[in-house]
C-alpha cells in the first residue's frame, strides 16, 4: 500500500513539474499538453490514492464506477455545453449588425421603428 501511495506521489510531482516547466515554452501545443498532464494526473491519483479499479482494496464495487461515470457525464455536458454556447453567443454577437447597418441597407428606417 505504501508503495502505491509513493508511486502516485512521485508521478503527481513529475506531472506537476512537467506542466509548470514545459508549458510556457511550447506555444501552440501548450494547452493540449496542460490538459493531457492534468487528466493524466487525475488518473494517477484515482488509481494510486483512491484505488479505483482495484477490487478488494477499498471495497470498490460496481456502484462507485456507476457514480463516477454519471458524474463524468454530467460534468462533460455542463462544462462542454457552457463553453459551446458561450463561444457561439460571442461569435454571433460579433457579427450582429448594428442599427446603423440596418438603416444603411434599407432593411429598416428610423421612422418605422416601433417605440
Amino acid at each position: 500500500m505504501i508503495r502505491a501511495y509513493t508511486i502516485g506521489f512521485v508521478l503527481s510531482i513529475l506531472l506537476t513539474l512537467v506542466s509548470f516547466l514545459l508549458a510556457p515554452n511550447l506555444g501552440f501545443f501548450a494547452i493540449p499538453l496542460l490538459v493531457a498532464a492534468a487528466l493524466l494526473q487525475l488518473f494517477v491519483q484515482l488509481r494510486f490514492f483512491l484505488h479505483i479499479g482495484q477490487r478488494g482494496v477499498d471495497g470498490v464495487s460496481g456502484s462507485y464506477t456507476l457514480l463516477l461515470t454519471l458524474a463524468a457525464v454530467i460534468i462533460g455536458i455542463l462544462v462542454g455545453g457552457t463553453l459551446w454556447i458561450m463561444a457561439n453567443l460571442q461569435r454571433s454577437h460579433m457579427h450582429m449588425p448594428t442599427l446603423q447597418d440596418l438603416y444603411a441597407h434599407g432593411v429598416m428606417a428610423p421612422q418605422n421603428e416601433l417605440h
Partner: protein
Amino acid sequence: MDKHTDHAHLGLWTYLMSDCVLFASLFAAYAVLYTATAGGPAPADIFHPRFVLAETLILLTSSFASGLAVVFAGRQHRLGTWVALLATFALGATFLGLELHEFSGLVAQGYGWQRSAFLSSFFTLVGTHGLHIFTGLLWLGALFLYMAVRGLTPQAVRRIGYFSLFWHFLDIIWIFIFTIVYLIPLL
C-alpha cells in the same frame, strides 16, 4: 465491510461526485469569464506561478500524508498514524495560510471580487476550494479529539479512511485549479 459502513462509503462517494458537479460549474464560469477583466488586472498581472507551484506541492504532500495515515491506521501503528495526520494538518493549514495571503494581497491592492467578472469567478472558484480545505481541517481536528479519547478503534480507522478520501478529492480539484485557473491564462 458491514452493510452500514458500505452505505456510509457509498454516501460519501455520492457527496463527492455532487461536489464535483458544483466545482465543474464554477470552472465553466471561470473559463467563460477569465477574459472579462473590465479594464482591471488580467491573470498575468496578478498571478505568481512559483507561489502557486509551492501551494500545489504542499497540498499534494498533504494528500500523500493522509494516504500514509490510512496505511498506518490499518496496521494499528499508533505513532505513524498520528505523525501522518499531524503532517496532513500542518501542510493543509500552510496551504490555507498561503491562499489567504494571496487573497488579502489582492484585496489590499483593490483587486477584490467586485473589481471584474474575472476576479469574481476567480474568488468564487478558488475560495470555494479553500472553504473545503478549511472544513477538512475542522474534520481533522474532530478526528484528533476522537483518537485522543478513544484510541485507534475500528471506528477511528474507518473515519481516517473517509477523511482521506475527502482530502484526496480536494487535491484532485486543485490539479484543475492549478492548470485552468493559473497556468492556461498565463500562456
